[in-house]
């Protein structure tokens, strides 16, 4: 049974206008994988990295004439903690599903002899996966599936690439 974990809660308010800082803060929180509990209230599990990132974000909000306080704490009950962990896992699913679908498409194209552009597309997707994994704080169950789909795609692209090379080498002779 999981116990209660420690969380960081950023509570902030920014002026309506200009919208640029509001969007920048929202995007940064999204990049970090934070979950909005309410408008202007975002949660992240506590570790050295999330703490540091939120401290800088707090400073940026203050520099943009906003208010921000950073709190650490635990939900009152185990059930609430579990709900929060589940919400974090669920929030990553859509991204993993999209990665899996695109990896499968690359794999299918590689079998048809896709060549060089597929490798670039795959590298971009692998990069996206690593970013996703970094903000997947509670190991969403789809992580493994996404990782395996990418491995299969890479194997297919490599095979496809080497047979294409053989073909062109033969054609050159």
């Amino acid at each position: 049974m999981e116990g209660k974990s420690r969380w960081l809660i950023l509570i902030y308010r920014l002026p309506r206008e200009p919208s640029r800082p509001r969007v920048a803060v929202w995007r940064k929180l999204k990049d970090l994988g934070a979950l909005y509990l309410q408008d202007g209230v975002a949660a992240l599990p506590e570790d050295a990295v999330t703490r540091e990132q939120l401290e800088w974000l707090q400073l940026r909000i203050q520099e943009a004439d906003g208010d921000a306080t950073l709190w650490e704490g635990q939900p009152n009950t185990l059930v609430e903690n579990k709900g929060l962990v589940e919400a974090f896992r669920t929030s990553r699913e859509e991204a993993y599903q999209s990665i899996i679908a695109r990896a499968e498409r690359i794999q299918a194209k590689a079998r048809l002899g896709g060549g060089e552009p597929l490798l670039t597309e795959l590298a971009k997707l692998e990069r996206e996966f690593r970013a996703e994994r970094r903000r997947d704080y509670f190991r969403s169950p789809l992580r493994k599936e996404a990782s395996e789909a990418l491995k299969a795609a890479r194997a297919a692209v490599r095979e496809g690439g080497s047979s294409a090379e053989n073909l062109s080498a033969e054609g050159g002779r």
Partner: protein
Amino acid sequence: MLWATRRGCHVDRTACAWLIKRFVDPEASFAFFKDPAEAPDEAVLFDVAGARLSHHGDDCSFETFLKEYSLEDPVLAEIAEIVHDADLMDEKYGRPESEGLDAIIRGMQLHLPDDGTLIRSTEAIFDGLYTYLAREAL
């Protein structure tokens, strides 16, 4: 001179400590605090919210150091891009080294929880990065 920063150093602060020792103050000693209120009075603070040598606008602290001390070495400018991407994770410069550096320093931080030991150990990494990039830049 005594330099002080927050505990739990990651890539920006380990890189700054290396920069201080190699390019700013070879005699530097370091202190680490949990709360800025505990910082020694005589210390120069770095990578602390509101300090001169800290994040400013888009810049991470390492970038601020280069500007504040007019360090115009092109190899340091490259290291600054890598540190920026690893620290702020915004892919501003798209440096592929940043992901590896981030993983290595995060791992070392877990392995060496004492910040003094950590920054002594990471010096070799930044020395190596500097030597490598200097060779590449030729």
